[in-house]
């Protein structure tokens, strides 16, 4: 499973290595590290965000080992959505029921519309929307796009997809 983990490190040399050691021991795959060195918590520690992939049973062990080493673990959360995409929709986006368009994606359970920008320049003019969809994985993202494509065809909306996506 993929989890995000917020930890706090003391501002002394060697702390990052200390934090990564339990991950290596539990064969976790480190996806990203965001080291906010310019920030300080009220405890004078440095906040670090990790995203890692590990067996579900390893997550608790990693957390315990980190805490044993003196690394404070502030939050551990499952990261459900691994894929994200921006899609532009052009047409009578609002009048054809934008809520319904969003619902079609949201009700899948594996993908969600998480952001929406909308422009309606005039009653008789075409509206434009840019939506961001998060999905659990590549396959789920493709399924969500297939649903959106079918809805767009029904509502006569032009769907503009990123170049690296199979349309």
């Amino acid at each position: 499973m993929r989890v995000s983990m917020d930890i706090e490190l003391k501002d002394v040399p060697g702390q990052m290595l200390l934090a990564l050691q339990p991950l290596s021991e539990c064969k976790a795959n480190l996806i990203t590290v965001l080291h906010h060195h310019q920030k300080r918590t009220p405890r004078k520690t440095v906040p670090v965000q990790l995203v890692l992939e590990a067996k579900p049973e390893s997550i608790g062990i990693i957390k315990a080992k980190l805490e044993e080493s003196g690394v404070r673990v502030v939050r551990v959360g499952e990261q459900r959505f691994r894929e994200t995409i921006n899609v532009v929709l052009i047409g009578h986006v609002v009048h054809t029921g934008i809520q319904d368009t969003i619902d079609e994606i949201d009700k899948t359970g594996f993908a969600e519309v998480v952001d929406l920008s909308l422009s309606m320049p005039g009653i008789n003019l075409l509206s434009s929307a840019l939506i961001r969809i998060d999905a659990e994985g590549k396959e789920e993202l493709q399924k969500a796009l297939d649903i959106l494509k079918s809805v767009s065809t029904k509502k006569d909306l032009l769907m503009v997809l990123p170049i690296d996506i199979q349309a």
Partner: protein
Amino acid sequence: MKTVCCSILGFGAIGQGVAQALLMKKEYLKSIGLEVKVVAVVDSKGATVNPQGVDLADCLSRKKKNGTVALENITGVEMIRSVNHELVIETTPTDIKTGGPGLQNMFAAFETGKDVITSNKGPLTLKYRELLETAKAAGSKFRFEATVGGSMPIINLANEVLAGNRIISIKGILNGTCNYILTRMLEERASYTDILAESLELGIAETDPTYDVEGIDTACKLVILANAIFGLDVTYKDVEVTGITKITPEALEMAYERGHVIKLIGEVSREKIQVAPRLVPIKHPLAVGGTLNVASVYTELAGEITVTGKGAGPIETASAILSDLISIYGKN
């Protein structure tokens, strides 16, 4: 020195561009052992024929003054059948419904054992396989680099320079007019209609822009790439086509705020042939502006190769025709 006797069929902007390029490159061609002798120039009203070689500068001047080069009332096909030469440079306008005179000219050229170099997409979009087989049966050479991307090398790049590589797919911007319209709509935050009017005024768009803005021109180019590079046997009807007429300045602006531009992208692989507006990251190699064309060739061994260049213009298109000519005759 090898003398290549040829005719130019179609003396519009591209045909005239070819004449100018041949005049400009006369000494260069001599330096590589080629003398190109144009024995006939044909336009829609008739022809100038001289087996000893027509005066190209005079043809250009008469075309400008009279609107035609016609001194004799004969058609392209009649000239091909009656005048002795080895190469037909076919630059008549594209007609994707019937193939137009270009299709008849090409068949006549092959039937009389002549080689053909063309910039005309229509015949290749409709009857690629038939043309290729007729050329093969006649032992004629058939080259058409100028049909896709103007000066930008793509067919010869994939088939010759990248020989040995399996081409996986090709994606790109193959229509300069659409690229200009989308670029300017974003720059000026202006509507499609306003920028189309500007494009017409500047001569970038045709009086009837349908062919460009509905994605038909890009689709025809994809058909040529699919047949010539991927070895498929497809026509225009096999392409999924969406144009740019619905694109709004607001959509372009929202996409730009998230680091993307919208471009009309043609995409061809063994599985799919499609033309559609797509979101392209601003720093992506395909995010070129203005009237430029660009194509990324995805290959098995060499990875991704991207070429960009001017997709239209008489001299630019003539450059592709000249490269085909040198490719056929320069090696002999």
